[in-house]
């Protein structure tokens, strides 16, 4: 792999950038691989990279129906944090956070991981209780977190309306200072390049149309370009997981919903961190290019169209203007939608399946991007050993039968 550096860039500039190497090959699929990963998004590519790097398994193919990193990796609002409530989630996301912190150097690709801090605003007394509970749990789990009062919030976040005359006055916030944002495309490309360099075959424009089974055991994938054999198959297809499961002959406790996001026109820096509010329902950060990156809500119906309903956009913009009234004259440039695979407990599924040799990694809901390195890392270990990584074990499909849910949104679903 051609090493990237400032000096390299300078050297290439002398030859008018005519001699850069390809970031990855376009290989012809082999007959059989040790591991076939279905889905060339961030999670799938990370899985391939860690299989090769940490487990020495390089006879690996990533099969992608479109282009690498073209699904939710390309469509999310790039927030990274690990301050989850429950131990199981916190440990998994913190594992990811630690990998984020050295990722650019590890894969020699600047993923622009920017630890600008992630704030979750509190508007009600119950928000404060829930926040104390979460921050307290984070701290004892080794995840950084602070609980701020209203005055501190006002000092730390300029232009945020912290006055008492808003509909839901801000009375505090949690902050994870190690949280932040990263450049989403770069994550996919960086992992792809690094995996390719270790020998992984990245097979784009190839759609999995079925799974071949022998005596009930998965032995490979059927694709629109032919059969590819595999000793193990890992399915990491986010919003399309339900469809993949159907092809494999089982159902998942997953529903795929549109999740929308939008950006403003690029403006000079005004929002320095990531600010989220569950009560008024919006979150915002600003990219290095100057776009305000704003997350909108999930449509409650199932949708694979990569678009949602307009009222979701309206409510989000209303929330942003409520939080930051000075942004009222800024203009929205573009909106889009992704397909999020949600589970009943808002936690992922990283699990064996009813089909031997077939593993699923899905159900990340809105948490997918931030988990990318951790998800790939534990999934790679699970695929390598044939046994689930300890951090992945609590996320088995079995929990939806025996009741051992890890209820991340249950914890926030408040009656009163």
């Amino acid at each position: 792999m051609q090493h990237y550096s400032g000096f390299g860039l300078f050297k290439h500039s002398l030859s008018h950038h005519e001699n850069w190497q390809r970031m990855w090959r376009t290989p012809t699929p082999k007959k059989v691989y040790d591991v076939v990963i279905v889905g060339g998004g961030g999670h799938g590519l990370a899985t391939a990279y860690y299989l090769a790097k940490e487990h020495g398994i390089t006879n690996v193919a990533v099969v992608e129906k479109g282009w690498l990193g073209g699904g939710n990796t390309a469509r999310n609002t790039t927030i990274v944090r690990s301050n989850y409530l429950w131990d199981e989630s916190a440990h998994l996301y913190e594992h990811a956070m630690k990998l984020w912190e050295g990722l650019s150097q590890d894969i020699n690709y600047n993923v622009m991981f920017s630890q600008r801090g992630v704030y979750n605003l509190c508007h009600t007394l119950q928000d404060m209780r829930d926040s104390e509970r979460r921050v307290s749990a984070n701290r004892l789990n080794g995840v950084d977190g602070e609980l701020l009062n209203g005055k501190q919030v006002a000092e730390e976040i300029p232009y945020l309306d912290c006055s008492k005359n808003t509909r839901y006055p801000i009375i505090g916030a949690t902050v994870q200072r190690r949280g932040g944002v990263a450049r989403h495309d770069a994550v996919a490309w960086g992992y792809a390049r690094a995996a390719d360099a270790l020998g992984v075959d990245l097979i784009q424009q190839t759609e999995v149309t079925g799974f071949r089974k022998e005596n009930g055991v998965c032995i490979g994938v059927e694709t629109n370009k032919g059969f590819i054999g595999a000793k193990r198959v890992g399915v990491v297809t986010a919003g399309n997981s339900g469809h993949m499961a159907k092809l494999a002959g089982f159902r998942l406790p997953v529903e795929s919903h549109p999740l929308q996001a939008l950006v403003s026109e690029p403006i000079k820096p005004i929002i320095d961190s990531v600010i989220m509010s569950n009560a008024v329902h919006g979150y915002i950060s600003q990219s290095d290019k100057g776009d305000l990156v704003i997350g909108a809500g999930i449509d409650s119906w199932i949708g694979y169209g990569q678009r949602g309903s307009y009222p979701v956009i309206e409510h989000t913009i209303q929330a942003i203007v409520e939080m930051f009234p000075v942004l009222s004259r800024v203009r929205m440039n573009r909106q889009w939608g992704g397909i999020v695979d949600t589970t009943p407990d808002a936690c992922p599924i990283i699990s064996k399946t009813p089909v031997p040799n077939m593993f699923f990694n899905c159900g990340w809901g809105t948490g997918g991007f931030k988990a990318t390195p951790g998800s790939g890392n534990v999934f790679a270990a699970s695929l390598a050993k044939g046994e689930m990584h300890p951090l992945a074990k609590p996320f088995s499909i079995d929990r939806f039968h025996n009741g051992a849910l890890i209820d991340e949104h249950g914890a926030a679903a408040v009656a009163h």
Partner: protein
Amino acid sequence: MSQSNRLPNGGRIDRSKVLNFNFNGQTYQGFEGDTLAAALLANGVDIIGRSFKYSRPRGIFAAGSEEPNAVLQIGATEATQIPNVRATQQALYSGLVATSTNGWPSVNTDMMGILGKVGGKLMPPGFYYKTFMYPQSFWMTYEKYIRKAAGLGRSPTELDPDTYDNMNQHCDVLVVGAGPAGLAAALAAARSGARVIVADEQEEFGGSLLDSRESLDGKPAADWVATVVGELKGLPNVTLLPRATVNGYHDHNFLTIHERLTDHLGDRAPIGQVRQRMHRVRAKRVVLASGTHERPLVYGNNDVPGNMLAGAVSTYVRRYGVAPGKKLVLSTNNDYAYRVALDWLDAGLHVVAVADARHNPRGALVEEARAKGIRILTGSAVVEARGSKRVSAARVAAIDVKAHKVTSPGEWLDCDLVASSGGYSPIVHLASHLGGKPVWREDILGFVPGDAPQKRVCVGGVNGVYALGDSLADGFEGGVRAASEAGFKPVEGVLPKALSRVEEPTLALFQVPHEKGTARAPKQFVDLQNDVTAAAIELATREGFESVEHVKRYTALGFGTDQGKLGNVNGLAIAARSLNVSIPEMGTTMFRPNYTPVTFGAIAGRHCGHIFEPVRFTALHAWHVKNGAEFEDVGQWKRPWYFPKAGEDIHTAVRRECKAVRDSVGLLDASTLGKIDIQGPDAREFLNRIYTNAWTKLDVGKARYGLMCKEDGMVFDDGVTACIADNHFIMTTTTGGAARVLQWLEIYQQTEWPDLQVYFTSVTDHYATLTLSGPNSRKLLSEVTDIDLGREAFPFMTWKEGLVGGVPARVFRISFTGELSYEVNIQADYAMGVLEKIAEAGKPYNLTPYGTETMHVLRAEKGFIIVGQDTDGSMTPDDLNMGWCVGRTKPFSWIGQRGMNREDCVREDRKQLVGLKPIDPNKWLPEGAQLVFDPKQSIPMKMVGHVTSSYAANSLGYSFAMGVVKGGLKRMGERVFAPLADGSVIEAEIVSSVFFDPKGDQQNVE
């Protein structure tokens, strides 16, 4: 120098209305009817800004929404700043203040430009992915500087003085675009009687006809526009929306139109007027007449001021009477662009030459130009332009388009304006918002809308129909079709006659070749706003980015505020050539709303500030305000939180309120609790199924507490339900759960058990509920009621009807404080009068109003839960130590029963709700604090639960809490520890959650 480029006559401007405006600190003049861009050009302003990445000087390039360069900051005051306004779309008004968004110290002498020249070489696409990585800790520092270069304009930092709103529209036919095709369509649809909306982004209707050389029925095309607009205006079924951009085409024919009502008048709306309005339109049929965008050609230094889109030159000359230069070189691959040379000539200006990439063009316009003596260089193109701050010359050379080679050294022509036309791209954005993939048409070298589920008709330019006469006919026919599909009788109409002429096909030329090859040639810009060059696109493909989305993302092609209107097809063509595939094989990127940017305020409409979301009040709110209450947000309600007296903080107020209730009597407004009237012969059976406990034996006149679970066995609401008559119950729910519970009842009744005869009706708003609580509540209430309150006559958990304060009431003897309590329900209209009477009668008893905080303390002392505070969606009734409230032998398997018996839900070491008593009675456990058994362990610690409710020492004399602890119910007397953020640890004993009056003696007071 005043309006040096203004032509002596012509244009649709009012020369009698001179408008002063300010650009970059200098005052200029323009005329009413100008856009800001036209006025700047009229004044000879060449440099309008600096480019995003390389800081190269840039001038106005286009005349409409595709403008990439002239993106300015507008606003005379801080509060009225508007970032990123395209000068080409901003009407000039008196006092307009505009500034460039980049460039230091000024756009004319920019220091960053020097850096751009040197550093430009170091900034190929994706350079930041390849560097700034080492050392790891330095990224945040690098990024600080990268962010300094971010953005175009800036947000205001003061509050917006303007208002915006939304308007919901419905129509039979929405016509998008009021050019020739759109107007013809509108006419056809409107005459059929359909409800029609016509929207166009420009200041006035007419589109291309406003600057057209063509005539209709022998008269200027603009005359026809005036006639049609006149007719449409007179029809009551037609709504005309100029200055209104259809920005999004959403599912089921829902579209959004962004109307700018006052932006042409000033940077803030006149008092009392709305600045911008979003129309939310549901259209039975849509006629898309969005027209085309001209493509520029891609050649060396095609970004230097003085390079323009060909059609824009005609627009400035004919519509605004402005000549954006003196000596024109036109580079084209099609016939239609020749009109630009003819317009230029008509304006008395000098056409240096026309370079036509085609070898033997013989179209009518070409011949007209030839006849007028214009020099035409065929088989040639402008290969590069020269000039630093303004074009000074252009090199025209012979090219071999197929081989992508320059075949002659060419000739440097002196000029100050290079206009280029690379053909026309139908504006397929709206047609593609729902994912319909555009289809490439080789005959017109453009993408036209592909199939899509929405009910729409594409007419005119967007449909690939370009000639004026054809476009009018296509539009009219489309209008007829749309109206008849919407259920209206088609009409016939006579369309004006347009001249038809021979037009020859456009040649497929996108990027003009250069001798040096793309990587080494002078920069050939594809996306001017994002400084994306042809070389960058080639590099991306070389590095393995083969999908169009990859190329876009790696190079930032089309990511600007113009969303690639100008450059995307050229970029595709360059990538396709580089990858040796065809343009349709390459495909387009996704089109998404918005077509052009939309103000946040306009999207938000009036849903901001004091009407952001509803605030719900009880009938007694005014009384609470009068009595000094502080309020707490509970769902949408404002509930009194506590009633501080002068000098009191929350703690002293709550202590006083608690004491009053425990010692005498307090008053709580409980009106926010959800109340559901349940009637029907199967009401009782329904309750059996929906609650965890049994209801079969509840007699008329009695009330019972119940828990509701979801199918998973987790508690989700609770409350008291009273039997009012045999088939009639009143259910109460939590305040926040009211709507949720009603829907819960309905979904089971309507979908699972439609055979059960029972109806549910919300009476939450109908009744106001006054709670009197405390040992003196009976005495007080007896002074204002005719109900026999005697202990035997009116026992605990029963209800009575009677007059309270002269008003009929249902009084429930239930208690959430542990004290003798009465909940008085009255028709809300009369509640205030009753309250005033009770308050008067309560004076001798020190009747004390209390809020939610005191209520929470008092109930916690009794160990009563609050769903949502002491539960979190993962607690079964057994986890709450409320097994007594579970009817395990009920015949019907009620909701939650099966769920709570799953393997994981019957574990003995689940987290269970217990009381917590800090060892130091003065220490307060923070609500939410996590608990551990061993405070000395290292991080990550093994957490065993958390504090759900906690209160400082109060009437009990010590602080206390409720919390969940793993296996807590079997750990009475054991210790838990809460390690806090400040490093301290609070130790607490696990105790029963009932701290006060465990035997319930308080109910028996006299």
